[in-house]
């Protein structure tokens, strides 16, 4: 079945690319693998009848936020991680301690999957209910966004304003103050 195959390929790409994001020292490559992961996720959204979310994922995440990350990586021309000597002598950097983090993350997966196993009704097909045409309609999305979620929408605009002012204040050079 092409749909099933598509899901597994996209899921595998998303997971592997995310592992590669945290699995290396070059921030540039991390950003690029994250973009690949976002592309796969946007494909997953299409399999969930959410084409608008898929396109928004590409436009907002891959097209804007990640360009911002790339910009900062290039602007700082950041040295490789763990460059300084004081860093290598840091007690937290001893091998073994680092593995606790990895095992905690592994534990999180086990815990989440265990929890999922105890919820009934997850085994049904995800597209069993609802009408695909209504769910993928941008008109319907807009109607609900600007009626039921109008307050959240306005609150988000305040958040963006605050973030914008904060970013300008933080990134300004001190000599200008």
């Amino acid at each position, binding site marked *: 079945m092409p749909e099933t195959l598509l899901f597994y390929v996209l899921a595998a790409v998303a997971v592997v690319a*995310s592992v590669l994001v945290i699995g290396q020292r070059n921030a540039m490559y991390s950003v690029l693998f994250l973009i690949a992961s976002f592309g796969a996720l946007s494909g997953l959204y299409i399999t969930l009848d959410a084409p608008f*979310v898929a396109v928004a994922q590409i436009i907002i995440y891959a097209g804007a936020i990640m360009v911002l990350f790339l910009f900062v990586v290039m602007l700082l021309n950041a040295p490789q991680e763990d460059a300084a000597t004081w*860093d290598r002598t840091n007690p937290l950097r001893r091998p073994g301690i680092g593995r606790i983090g990895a095992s905690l993350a*592994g534990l999180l997966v086990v815990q989440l999957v265990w929890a999922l196993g105890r919820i009934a009704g997850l085994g049904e097909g995800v597209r069993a209910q609802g009408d695909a045409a209504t769910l993928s309609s941008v008109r319907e999305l807009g109607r609900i*966004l600007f009626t039921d979620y109008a307050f959240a929408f306005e609150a*988000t605009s305040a958040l963006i304003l605050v973030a914008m002012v904060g970013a300008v204040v933080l990134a300004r050079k001190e000599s200008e103050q």
Partner: protein
Amino acid sequence: MIPLSHYLIVSALLFAIGSAGVFLRRNLITILLSVEIMLNAVNLSFVAFGRAAGNVDGQIITFFVMTVAAAEAAVGLALVIALFRHRESLNPDAFTSLKW
């Protein structure tokens, strides 16, 4: 027909990878990227749950998460630039003192 649980497992894996990144990496930019992975994992489960429930609310919450992610990236990266100007380092362990 792909069951809902498969989407949720992918989401759980992505979330765990993101949290592992926050635990393990010592580079502020990579840590921010890991936070983005976690936010995306949550988005995926929102859309999957919304699809399974047959309404668009899951998709709408995704937009709010994206906005929060954009705001977080803007402020976070501004902080990273400001910190890098002070210590020429992106390692969070370089910023353990409360004042300089």
